Structures are given as C-alpha cells and as structure tokens.
C-alpha cells in the first residue's frame, strides 16, 4: 500500500510503503521501518478526501497521508479510526454535560438567586441602598422638575399615606415620603430610599381622590414588600449570568445599568399582583373604597390603548393587564364610604404643579 509520510522534522512528505498488520501499522521508508500501534493513532483530517493519521500522544508532527482507495482496508484494520470521535467530533456525554451545566447555571442565576432575592436584598448594607437611591434620583431629576407650588399638596398626600399605613401598621410608615413632580406622563413609582414620586399628569388623570389614593397604596405595598431592592438583586444576577455565559458581549452590562436606574425599576408581574392585593388591604383597613383604584386601572387601560403600549415611558407597560386588575379591584369595592380626601384637600392636590392653570384651561375648553 502506498502512502506519504512526513517525519515531523522537515516540511516535506516522502513516498512510503505501508503494511496493515493485525495490531500495528508498519511504515517502510527505504531501509527504515517505523511501527505504529493502531490503538495509539488518531485522525488528523476532517473528511476532506485524504485520510491523514498521526500518533495520538505526543504529537511529534509525524503524519501518514493515504491516497485514494485505501479506506476499506484501513477501516478493517483499525475501525476506531473511522468513528466520528477519532475525527474530533465530541460525544453525546460531552453535549449532555454542557446542557446540564448551562441550564444549572441558568437555574442558579435566573431562578435560585431571584428566589432568595428578598433576604439578599435585606442583607445589602445601607450604603449600597443609598447609592442605588442616589442613582435613581439622578434619573428622576433628569426628566422631572420639582414643583415649587406643591408644598401643601405634598403634605396632604403624605398625611393621607400615613393614615393608610397606620391603619395597616406598615413598619416603614415613618420613612416613606411622597413627592409630586412635574413630568410629561402619568406615573407613580417607588424608589429604593422609600420615596414615592407622583407625577402631576397622574394627578390630573384622576377624577376622584380615591383613584390617586389607590395608586399610592399600591406603591406603599411595593416598599413594604421590598420589591424595589429585590428587583435590583434579580436584575444584577441576570446581568452577571448573561455576561459570563455569553462571553461578555455587553448584554449583561446593559441589564445591570438598567437595574439601577428608573427603566430597571419595573417589577415582575408577581410583584405587581402582590402590590395590588396588599394595596387593597390597606384601603380596606383605612375604610377607603377600592372602586377608585378600579377606575384608575380603567384609565390606564385607555391611556395604553391611546398611546400604544410601547410608547409608555413608565413602568405601567410592564404591569399585568389593567382590565383584569380593574375587575379585581371592583370586586372588592365597598359602597357608601367617605372619599379619602375632602373636597378642599383634593382641590389643593389638583392645583399642584401648575395644575390650577391646566384645570382652568380645561374648563375653558369645556365651556
């Protein structure tokens, strides 16, 4: 059998005679004879039309290249050289191990850590929480304007929130502070330092104080149940997972950045439902009808339909469907309860952040 042999010491092939014996392959090159055991051989080609074999270990650079028509003889003498494994194709065990490894990592980072997010978030030093709050506030300041005519309205809302929290014995009631901000969209959100931001557009969206009160109760529930910091832990965990597994392509970093700014302060649907339910508990305990928040959910629904869900620059778009939430709130609504704010208080709140001008111009339009 003819073949070509390279000795690994010079970049040339020489013509040789090859004999396929029972256990060994014998190469005859002039007077010299080289014997290779089949068990110590590996393939060096990749089905490119030329079978090339080499000693497995150490790789001395010796190569034996067969010409056409010797495949069957070689297969009969050393069948293991014809198996995919000999040509470098990994076995099923390797693929199985990789699947198990990758999905285990995914389970740890995307399920395990989120599951333990609450104790992890509570264990975070206060310094970290303050830092995250500062970042969140810098984001708030970037797209809202603090209102200079809202002191009285702010106090009214804070008194209302305290009354609600006291009725349900919310532990964070001394720390929670509501701020009214001038922004171009209706929204309310809780920050890591237990602040709640309410935008003037949200106040104007409400027709009745109970509608706004329902939103405040919802945000208070987010704070009581530590949803904000849990969410930060979840998102950072996901960020690290995507960065490490996907090779640092930047996806994880984007998630990490998002997790500490306002865009990242979106909660999971589970958190939202939890905040809805707990918020309605507060309202019941404070003798405020959940009919208000039911109407507010309907307004959110209309707003989403008008603006298109993708256009909402707020966390509203990640909430569960507003219609379902409205129905759930309506089911718990009680009749005959007093409004959560007096007419005077409600007027003051409505007039915050230049709301008086807006109400006047709306009245003019109506006339």
């Amino acid at each position: 059998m003819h073949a070509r042999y390279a000795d690994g010491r010079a970049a040339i092939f020489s013509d040789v005679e090859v004999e396929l014996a029972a256990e060994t392959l014998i190469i005859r090159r002039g007077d010299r004879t080289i014997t290779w055991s089949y068990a110590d051989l590996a393939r060096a080609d990749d089905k490119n039309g030329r079978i090339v074999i080499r000693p497995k270990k150490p790789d001395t650079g010796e190569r034996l290249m067969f010409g056409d028509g010797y495949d069957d003889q070689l297969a009969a003498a050393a069948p293991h050289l014809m198996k995919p494994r000999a040509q470098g194709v990994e076995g099923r065990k390797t693929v199985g191990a990789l699947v198990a490894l990758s999905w285990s990592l995914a389970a740890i980072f995307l399920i395990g850590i989120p599951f333990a997010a609450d104790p992890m978030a509570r264990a975070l030093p206060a310094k970290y929480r303050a830092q995250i709050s500062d970042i969140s506030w810098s984001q708030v300041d970037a797209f809202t304007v603090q209102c200079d005519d809202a002191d009285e309205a702010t106090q009214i809302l804070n008194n209302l929130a305290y009354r609600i929290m006291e009725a349900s014995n919310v532990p964070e009631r001394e720390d929670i502070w509501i701020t009214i901000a001038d922004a171009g969209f209706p929204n309310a959100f809780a920050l890591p330092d237990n602040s709640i931001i309410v935008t003037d557009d949200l106040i104007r969206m409400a027709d009745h104080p109970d509608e706004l009160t329902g939103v405040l109760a919802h945000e208070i529930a987010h704070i009581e149940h530590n949803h904000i910091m849990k969410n930060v832990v979840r998102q950072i965990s996901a960020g690290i997972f995507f960065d490490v597994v996907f090779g640092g392509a930047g996806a994880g970093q984007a998630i990490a950045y998002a997790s500490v700014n306002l865009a990242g302060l979106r909660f999971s649907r589970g958190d939202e439902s939890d905040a809805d339910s707990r918020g309605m508990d507060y309202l019941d305990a404070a003798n405020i009808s959940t009919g208000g928040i039911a109407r507010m959910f309907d307004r959110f629904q209309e707003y989403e339909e008008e603006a298109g869900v993708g256009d909402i620059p707020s966390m509203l778009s990640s909430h569960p469907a507003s219609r379902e939430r409205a129905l759930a709130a309506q089911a718990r609504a009680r009749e005959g309860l007093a409004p959560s704010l007096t007419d005077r208080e409600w007027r003051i709140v409505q007039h915050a952040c230049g709301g008086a001008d807006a109400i006047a111009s709306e009245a003019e339009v109506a006339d």
Partner: protein
Amino acid sequence: MTAEASPTQTFAHSGKFFNVFGLALKNAALTILTLTMYRFWARTAMRRRLWSRAWVLGDPLEYTGNAGELFRGFLIALPCFFLPAIFVFYIAPLAIEPTWAAWLTFTFYVVSVPLIAAARYWMRRYQLSRTRWRGIRLGLASSAWSFAAASWGWWILQTLSLGWYTPAARINRARMMWENTRFGDQPFQFETPHGESPQKGMWWPFAIGWIGTLIGSIVSFGVTGFILSALTTAGIITLGADGMMFSLVATLLAAALTAISYFIAFAPYRAAAMNRIAAQITIDGARFHLRAKTLSLLFYETLGWIFLIFSLGLLTPVAGFLQVRYLLNRLDLIETPRFADIGQSVLADTDAGESLGDAFDLDMGVGVI
C-alpha cells in the same frame, strides 16, 4: 473515498458551501441548547473543517486544537477579566462614590483598548500553535504586551488624526504580527521593496472611504431628516408622544445608512490593504501575491453580513468561511521556500486557549488568521 480536492494550484480552499452551512446549523442549534456554552466545541469543529480544506501546494492544513483548551481558557478568563468587570459594572456603581465609579468605568474602557490588542495576539498565537502543515507547527513569538502597547499608541494616533493614520497603523500591526510569525523554525518576514512606501496603493482607497463615508453620513441624516420634517409638515405624524418614536426610528435609519455607506466606501481600501499586506510577506525568499478585487470582495462580504444579521450572529462562521475561501483562492506564492530545510517549531506551546479572545468575542467563530 474519492479525494474531493488536493488541488494543483499553490493555495486553494475546497470547502463546499452546504458542507460548511450544515455544520454551522448544527453548531447553532447546540449553541442555543447549551445557552452558548457549546461555542468552544462549535468553534473547534468549524476550524477543523475549514483548515482541512485549505490546501497549500496540494497538502491540507490541519487544526489540532481542542475544545477543552478553549473552555479552560474561558475559565482562566473568568477571574482575570470577568471578576474585575463584574466589580466595575455591578458592584462599583453601588459601593463607591458615583464620580469614582464613573472614572473606574472610563479607566476600564481605556485599559480595554490595549487589552483587546493583547487578546488578539494571544488568540493568534494559540491558533497558529494549533495549525500544522505537513506536520510542521506554526507559531507566534514575542510578547503580546509589546504588541498591545504599540497598538495603543497607534490607536491614539488614529484617533488624533481622525482616522487618517489608519493605513499606517494597519501596516504597522501587520508587520509586527508577521515578523513574529513562524512556520516551524522558519520566520516570516515583512519586507517593503526598496524605495516603496509600505502603504503604497492604500492612501487613495482610504481617502475614497473616508470622504465617501462623510458624504454618506451627511446624505443619510439629511434625507431622513427631510423625510421626517416632510411627514410632520404634511400632518402624517405629529411631534407629540409619537414624535419621539419617529425621531428615534429616523436616527436609527440614518445611522444604518451611514454604516452601509462606510461599508461600501471602504471596500476598495479593504481590498487594497489585503493585497498590500500580502505583497510584503515573505518566507525564505518566497513572496505572496493576493488578487483581492473590490467588487468581488464586497460581494462576499455582503453575503457574509446577510448571514450574520439574519441569523443573529449564529451563522457568522459561514461569513468567515466565504471570506477565507475567497482569499485563499486568490492567493499565489512566487518562488518556493526550501521546505526540506524547514524544521519543527521550537516555540513553546500555549495552553491558555484563547481566554480573553472569547471574552471580547474577537474571532467571530472562525479565526483571526
């Protein structure tokens, strides 16, 4: 078995499109199934296939690397790169003053420039050390940090010259890479013919690319801005809540058109640079000659980008294959080295895989050779 190749020309690539495409599909499926952890095995299988179909003087190249080495390199990169990165991007923003965190992020990016260059060098060293022809191993000598430091300097000159130093920087990088490349114990040289500029033939194509991109960006942004204002004037869109979305779409569209104009305008430069670099590489007195042409190169590059974009990057190796095949089939060797005098490589093996090369996603699934 019938030999599908063993071509007679000096350099040739006998890879068949569907053969490579099939492997790329299988790799893509397993990469998804393993949440990308299969990528090391995918890369190895693809290299083995592409290398084995690259023929030089009738004998194929051989890729001897294995996925375990790449995976080990990834594990080495974890503490060396990912832990600092996790600190900079995840912990620092929460744990230290925002100003210091911002400076740390900035520093990280600045340090990344030479680090990427070093990673590219390590990656090439690994790939060459796992490439054999006629049993003789290739290799890359010298320090990756020297290359990184020099690259950093060239990068600064490129930035300060608004890109005009790029042809010189490209030649400098090629020179440093090739002068340290070995085939066995034989070094490659990077020699410029006496009296010629190393960048001969590259400046005009570069100027075409630079000016073409500038014009392309002005036209792209001008046209999209004009369309946006026309739609606003006609009342088809309003500058309310929708206006922001339309502006964003228009900006993205203009940026995409600019990228396309860059891609097209610089095609003559890319072809010229490849040809010029190849012309200056020698080994044992033998010279290389590459015949890359603008239009044909652009065609294969475009095809590659289509694969890349529409497969969300999963079929990137197909793009790499098209380019490797294009170049090899247009490469000639003038004179022949004395192969009988070229002995086995004496350079030490690298066992750190491609480590940071994977972290920076440098090789696009094929290789940087």
